[in-house]
């Protein structure tokens, strides 16, 4: 009985897919699919939150633009005023050049320059959403303990507790050593902040899907925080290890090769953190988008090729989404683990 039902369901799906193709084919065949534009417009920040296109009308949410300039002062307006290259109060979105896709304005000399742009862009909104979700989750969990002293939680609170304690004991305490409590809150915050942003990024529909942790500004701030946490609390032995490492003397004098290498390493470590997270998440988004675009590229190649490629694309997309889910957790874990390791290394004693 069950088998028959499953086969029936599968059959239904296949029919639905075929309908979808025949419907899409008409549209796709009429225009060339520009994969690069689709992919880049997704992984880059934007002033509007594009959701989908329904026929010819674009469904997107206009987001508030906040710009400030010395001469003009503060301006706040919705990004829908700048749609399709419109100009509003002298501001417009640059179509090309160094500032392509960004809000620009003409200064006194007629040069196009960037004002101070604090707009709530797509990534900022996703970031704020993730912040709110994270605060709610963790504070709810924390308040649970106040209501239930000396009890063991189950369900969602139990899951958060297990994660927090795993990070605390297995990652932070083991990497930093005895003096780990000072850094534990920072590293916990980093882990959950990256995790929640990564997971929201994997969700393909509206409030999710933004490429937040795949944006270099976000990973840059996190890496700078780790850089500060590492070096501001470095011990004497750590700084001696950098400027007077234990290597044969000819490597230090007269040309300080090793001190230079070590000093360089102080910056490459957080830099690697920044690039690793950024590249992993961005690449994941890019691959999933490219695989999805494959369906529409092959639409003009006939039904057989198209349906074959669609099946391949869907299978690969499922695989990639599972992989991304794993990567989302893994990258948050790795960022935290390496940060903790760097902090632990800076705590070395003689």
């Amino acid at each position, binding site marked *: 009985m069950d088998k028959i039902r499953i086969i029936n369901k599968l059959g239904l799906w296949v029919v639905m897919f075929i309908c979808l193709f025949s419907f899409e084919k008409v549209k796709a065949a009429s225009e060339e699919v520009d994969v690069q534009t689709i992919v880049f417009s997704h992984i880059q920040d934007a002033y509007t939150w594009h959701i989908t296109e329904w026929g010819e009308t674009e469904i997107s949410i206009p987001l508030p633009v906040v710009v400030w300039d010395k001469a003009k002062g503060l301006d706040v307006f919705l990004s829908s005023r700048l749609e399709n290259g419109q100009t509003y109060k002298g501001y417009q979105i640059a179509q090309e050049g160094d500032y392509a896709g960004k809000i620009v304005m003409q200064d006194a000399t007629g040069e196009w320059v960037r004002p101070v742009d604090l*707009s709530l862009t797509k990534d900022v909104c996703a970031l704020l959403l993730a912040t709110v979700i994270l605060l709610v989750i963790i504070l709810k969990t924390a308040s649970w*303990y106040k209501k239930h002293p000396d009890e063991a939680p189950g369900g969602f609170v139990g899951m958060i507790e297990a994660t*927090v304690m795993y990070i605390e004991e297995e990652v932070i305490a083991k990497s930093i050593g005895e003096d780990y409590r000072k850094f*534990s809150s920072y590293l916990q*915050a980093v882990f959950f902040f990256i995790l929640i942003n990564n997971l929201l990024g994997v969700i393909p529909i509206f409030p999710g899907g933004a490429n937040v942790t795949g944006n270099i500004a976000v990973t840059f701030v996190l890496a700078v*925080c780790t850089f500060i946490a590492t070096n501001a609390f470095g011990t004497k032995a750590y700084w001696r290890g950098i400027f007077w490492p234990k290597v044969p003397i000819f490597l230090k004098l007269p040309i300080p090769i090793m001190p230079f290498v070590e000093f360089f390493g102080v910056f490459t470590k957080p830099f690697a953190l920044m690039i690793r997270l950024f590249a992993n998440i961005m690449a994941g988004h890019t691959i999933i988008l490219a695989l999805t675009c494959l369906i529409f590229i092959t639409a003009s190649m006939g039904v057989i090729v198209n349906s074959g490629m669609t099946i391949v694309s869907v299978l690969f997309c499922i695989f990639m989404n599972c992989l991304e889910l794993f990567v989302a957790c893994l990258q948050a874990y790795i960022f935290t683990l390496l940060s903790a390791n760097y902090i632990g290394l800076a705590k070395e004693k003689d």
Partner: protein
Amino acid sequence: MSLLTPDSGLLFWMILSFGIVLVILSKYGFPVIIKAVEQRKAFIEGSLDSARKANEQLANLKAEGEAIIAQAKEQQNVILKEAMVTKEQIIAEARQKAADETRKQLEEATRRIREEKEKAIREVRAEITDLSLAIAEKVMKESLSKDEKQKQVINKLLDEVSFSKS
């Protein structure tokens, strides 16, 4: 490419939101959770410890109870043994008493029988003596006088015919 240049607006918002997250969660979030979990851990450990202690006490109590029972059993055995001995003693005494009584009664009976017998013999003797005397008197009414010498002869004769006196 603009992919690799951090955007100042996003930088600002990122610093702001991450700062807020960091400040709020490092005050009301993670330390609270970790403290609660550690407290619970301590509580559970304490509970386990007291349970272990209670168990130990229970085992001690059990052992004590068993010791008491063993002691009581021993005492019981001792008492039983004593009772046994006493019983045997009593029985032996009773037996002795009974035996004595029996012997006494037997002796009494023998004595009485002997007395009765002697009495009877004495009576019979007297009777016989009288009878003999009467006979003899009758026999010797003529020829013989009833003197003392004749009585003695007859008595002597009777002794010989086995009517012992004592």
